[in-house]
């Protein structure tokens, strides 16, 4: 069966991720169940029980231990994966830095969910946006297909010798993870061939060539240089991500960009969006275009490394840009995506006005009308009205805050 000739399945986002993991068949998976990622762990446990994978599956007692165990197995020299959400991601926190700084090519699915408190199990991007400086590459998927594709491409990106940096790939909790959507899988053999064999670097199991992984690196040590090499790896990862995307496109016909523009060629105003809300935004862009409004959208696929040049290329000629954050940075000028997009465009001789927009926290619904509201703010700015300095909240009960 050709790689593009497989049937289209109806699956949940979690099933899509679990299937990708089955096809990758990593040496080790250590994971702890958490809503809404739970299904990934359960399905994978069934794959293990059914003998569909040869993975050593470790049912640890916490996410801190999940990330610790995959640090151990990856340092031992094994291809290693895990998955988490929200508080689990937060509990992994200190170990995320260990994984990245030890240059362990772990691939982790994170099903995005709000962080407590108050407790909330629904989608927003607070968890992984909070982890944007941990040193992991971050891929954000829009739908079921992308969740699957990112998982497979993530292996190649993380393990590439120019990169050797862990990758987290995201999908929106519930909206994608729990909802049914279309998925076209690759044949198992095609995935095996695409990812290739794992190559361990200085594995702990090599007793004849002992190394100490992550030794003390104190005041007169090399800590600073090690941090700079992490940034070098991030710089190099752009070319690797594009190369892997290119190869993946040859295999599947699905080409992923760092940023995906929608009707941006002549756009005067644009929204920058991450995740499942991109679909709603496209619909609204189409409606506005019918009315003659030159609206467009930029979807963020890769947030780390941050594709500055791609943002400049796509947004530089707009007069006004709204940046949609599904996470906030309390006390800052706006959400994390806003801060970085505005910074990216700062050096342009003529730069667009940029509006911070917050939406969808804790799974708050985002309707087409809400996207229209966002564009209405941009239209006012384009017409010369003074821009709001404060965040624009979409679908917030404004009379209650």
């Amino acid at each position, binding site marked *: 069966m050709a790689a593009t000739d497989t049937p289209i399945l109806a699956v949940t986002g979690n099933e899509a991720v679990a299937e990708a993991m089955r096809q990758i*068949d990593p040496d080790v998976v250590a994971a702890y169940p958490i809503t809404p990622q739970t299904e990934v762990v359960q399905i994978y446990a069934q794959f293990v029980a059914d003998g569909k994978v040869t993975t050593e599956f470790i*049912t640890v007692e916490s996410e801190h231990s999940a990330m610790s165990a995959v640090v*151990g197995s990856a340092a031992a020299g094994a291809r290693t994966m895990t998955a988490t959400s929200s508080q689990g991601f937060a509990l992994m926190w200190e170990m995320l830095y*260990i994984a990245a700084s030890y240059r362990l090519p772990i691939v982790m699915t994170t099903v995005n969910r709000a962080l407590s408190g108050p407790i909330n199990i629904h989608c927003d991007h607070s968890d992984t946006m909070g982890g944007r400086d941990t040193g992991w590459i971050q891929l954000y998927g829009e739908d079921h297909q992308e969740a699957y594709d990112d998982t497979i491409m993530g292996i190649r990106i993380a393990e590439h010798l120019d990169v050797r940096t862990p990758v987290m790939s995201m999908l929106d909790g519930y909206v994608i993870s729990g909802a049914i959507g279309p998925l076209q899988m690759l044949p198992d053999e095609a995935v095996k061939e695409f990812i290739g064999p794992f190559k361990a670097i200085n*594995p702990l199991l090599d007793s004849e060539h002992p190394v*100490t992984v*992550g030794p*003390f690196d104190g005041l007169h040590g090399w800590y600073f240089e*090690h941090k700079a090499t992490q940034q070098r790896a991030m710089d190099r990862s752009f070319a690797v991500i594009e190369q892997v995307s290119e190869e993946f496109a040859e295999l599947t016909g699905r080409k992923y960009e760092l940023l995906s523009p929608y009707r941006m060629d002549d756009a005067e105003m644009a929204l920058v969006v991450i995740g499942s809300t991109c679909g709603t935004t496209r619909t609204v862009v189409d409606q506005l275009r019918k009315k003659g409004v030159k609206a467009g959208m930029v979807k963020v696929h890769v947030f780390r490394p941050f594709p500055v040049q791609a943002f400049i290329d796509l947004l530089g000629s707009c007069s006004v840009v709204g940046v949609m954050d599904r996470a906030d940075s309390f006390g800052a000028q706006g959400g994390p995506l806003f801060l970085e997009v505005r910074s990216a465009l700062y050096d342009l001789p003529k730069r667009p006005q940029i509006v911070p927009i917050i939406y969808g926290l804790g799974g708050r619904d985002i309707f087409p009308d809400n996207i229209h509201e966002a564009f209405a703010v941009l239209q006012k700015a384009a017409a010369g009205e003074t821009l709001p300095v404060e965040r624009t909240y979409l679908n917030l009960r404004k009379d209650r805050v």
Partner: protein
Amino acid sequence: MNVTGVEEEVHSHTEHALWRAGNGACAGCGMSLGLQWVDQALDGEKPTMVVPACCAVVTPGSYPTTAFGVPAVATTFASSPSVATGVSRVRQMNGEDIPTICWAGDGGTYDIGLATISGAAERNEDIIYICYDNEIYGNTGGQRSSATLPGARTSTTPAGKHEPKKDIMAVLVAHRIPYAATLSLAHRDDFLRKIRVARRLRGFRFMVMLSPCPAGWKSDPAEGIDLVRAAVGCGLFPLYEVFDGRRYRINARPDGTALEDYLSRQGRFRTPSFDHAATRAAIAEQWAYLDAMEAAFPAGPREGSDVPAAPPPPPIAPEANGPVTGP
């Protein structure tokens, strides 16, 4: 005190070099000697060491130097049993019979790492976990831990600690792990035998070593071994081992050494609030408990280095992915 024999063995042993010369451990550091004895007991075998935040992660030296002559991974305070889980599982996948050893202080064991130790013990991971217990957070300047004795002065209990020492052995024994034992640096044969017993068994093996810390104990660096001998002799640090969490064996009984012989040589116990009577009562209670357990659940004749070797574990994942190897 016969240290001559020990020194000879240490010197003759540097070829194994789990823990090499040139490290930055303090004079009289029990941890440093303990690592050398573990090396001797393993007789040249090269384990993988998993070391959380503690003196053993700082004293090996700064990158690119390391005192560890075997593969080692440094990790965060609470994570060593979980990191070791990952290492050990990959070992098993490859069908390799080489130990994975966690080497952690009492802070990482009794306190911040307790949940992860419990997790690994409950899963019966194939790990040897050794706690070097100096009864304080030594690496950060000697703060209290739950291993600190009541009445002891630390930098966070300047007037003496109020709470009793946590019975970490009982906690681990309750997990019904294959082996749990206490280690004394004053009982070298017993120490080496226990490491070898642990080496021959499978699953989660836990040992706790009383580790002299002259800086924290306010004691003479030359007296560390004598202090451990006194701690065992007065009954404060019982030497015993428990098989499968059920069968007890006491290895050394109190020999009449006065409690004061242990306490008076350490500045940490010179507090007005130190309650000698309460400490004696706690020792008596501990021994009553151990005696009762040994009587009710005896381990039988001593299982020394003649414990039959367990067969190496079968590879738990077939060759589908091939063995994990270096480049």
